[in-house]
């Protein structure tokens, strides 16, 4: 027991600090990817609902492919292809090659994957808005941007939150996959700590507890946000 506490203590002989740095990186990537996914999702949902036939078909291809291929394969493919493509573009334009930081690459790759899922979530949520609200806004002469900001986004939020909450939890867990491409986040930090100290069970269990706490705390916060987004609407229990 004393040995476990010593191993997990946050100061150097223990590895707790390493795990916490890993957790920080995991949360950063998850938040970044989730945000990027939201932006892609809103654009994608708009394209799927209001875009022309070509845009719709291309978006259908995007969401289908991304949802059919394992995240691990996509991460490898986009990681190599993305960095390669940017460097080729840079050399073609006469700039120096750059090293793309793992953080940015991780956010971009996971965000691209999240975008496909959140496109579907947000599309469904926009469809769930009573059509009259959007028509009324149009009748007031609102521009599309104003309509999006004032009506569509706030009105779709209560319908989108359960799906988006799920996506956030998936994002936090998908950051673990970046350990496979060698990005230093919680799972890789855990593996390094476990490999050095040979206390595999201790560290993996500790990391599991950290992930679980992250999920549970997220659930608490999501519950609050959902309450606020659904204010003025009948509660879920009464609605059933």
């Amino acid at each position, binding site marked *: 027991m004393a040995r476990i506490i010593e191993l997990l203590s946050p100061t150097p002989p223990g590895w707790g600090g390493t795990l916490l740095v890993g957790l920080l990186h995991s949360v950063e990537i998850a938040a970044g990817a989730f945000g990027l996914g939201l932006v892609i999702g809103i654009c994608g949902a708009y394209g799927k609902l209001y875009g022309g036939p070509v845009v719709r078909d291309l978006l259908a291809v995007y969401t289908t492919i991304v949802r059919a291929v394992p995240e691990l394969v996509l991460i490898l493919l986009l990681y190599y292809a993305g960095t390669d493509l940017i460097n080729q573009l840079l050399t073609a334009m006469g700039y120096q090659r750059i090293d793309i930081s793992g953080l940015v690459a991780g956010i971009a790759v996971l965000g691209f994957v999240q975008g496909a899922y959140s496109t579907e979530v947000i599309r469904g949520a926009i469809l769930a808005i009573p059509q009259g609200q959007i028509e009324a806004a149009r009748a007031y002469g609102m521009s599309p941007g104003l309509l999006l900001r004032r009506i569509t986004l706030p009105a779709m939020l209560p319908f989108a939150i359960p799906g988006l909450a799920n996506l956030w939890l998936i994002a936090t867990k998908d950051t673990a996959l970046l*350990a496979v491409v060698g990005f230093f986040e919680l799972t890789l930090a855990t593996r390094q700590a476990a490999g050095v100290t040979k206390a595999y069970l201790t560290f993996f269990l500790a990391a599991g507890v950290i992930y679980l706490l992250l999920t549970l705390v997220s659930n608490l916060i999501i519950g609050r946000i959902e309450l606020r987004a659904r204010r003025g609407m009948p509660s879920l229990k009464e609605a059933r």
Partner: protein
Amino acid sequence: MAGEAIIINVARASLWLQPHRIVLVLIALALVFAAAFFMRWDWLPQYYEMALVGLWRTLWILAVTCTLGFLLAVPLGLAQAAGPFWLAAPAKAFCTVIRGTPLLLQLWLLYYGLGSLFPQYPWIRESWMWPYLRQAWPYGVLALTLSFAGYEGEVMRGAFAGVPKGQLEAARAFGMSRWKILRRIWLPQAFYRALPTLTGETVLQLKSTPLVATISVIDIFAVSSKVRQSTFLTYEPLLLLALIYMAITGILVFALGKIEARIPNKIG
């Protein structure tokens, strides 16, 4: 009758094959041909057999873990929906822990954590299980099974709870024993309710299988990594791998959709 069907089919085809779609399909074909001609595929004959073995292993792991996971999910769901507190609480805790931690971590916990613990005990090393416990795949199968059970157990809880009370009361009024009610009324109806989610869960499970490559199980993903390491090609193996996974997903969705269509969809 036959003529009508043909007309409907033609109408559907012309609806699908709009001009812009033809252009998009042509662009896609051009991309495929460009990939086939300008990329290097000469390594394919050499690794062909290895890839087949890997593909077989992936499908095998998928089938076994989905079946075992579903069998485990039924009692998990039942315990949460109707069990006493001392059964419901552990089942709920299990589902929460499985769904709250990354699968990769669970896999590494089992493989590195438990795997490093076992050799310390002589009686395990002398038992009949030791030849299996020394290999990687039992840990992979175990982790994927538990993961599937955790996610599907939550679905089954909802499915069991969603069966109308009247059905169960009617069964009780007929004097059926509790076991018979479960077997004849409750379980079949809950299963039909859970069926639509099963396709999605199976596809998710397929997408989780490449993780076993990280604990040295040679599945199709590991084969592609091997090809990448020995031929120094970055894209070709990965693109082919993505294509293979897409094909499996397509077949899975099609086949499970067929099965779903055969089940009576009137839920009482």
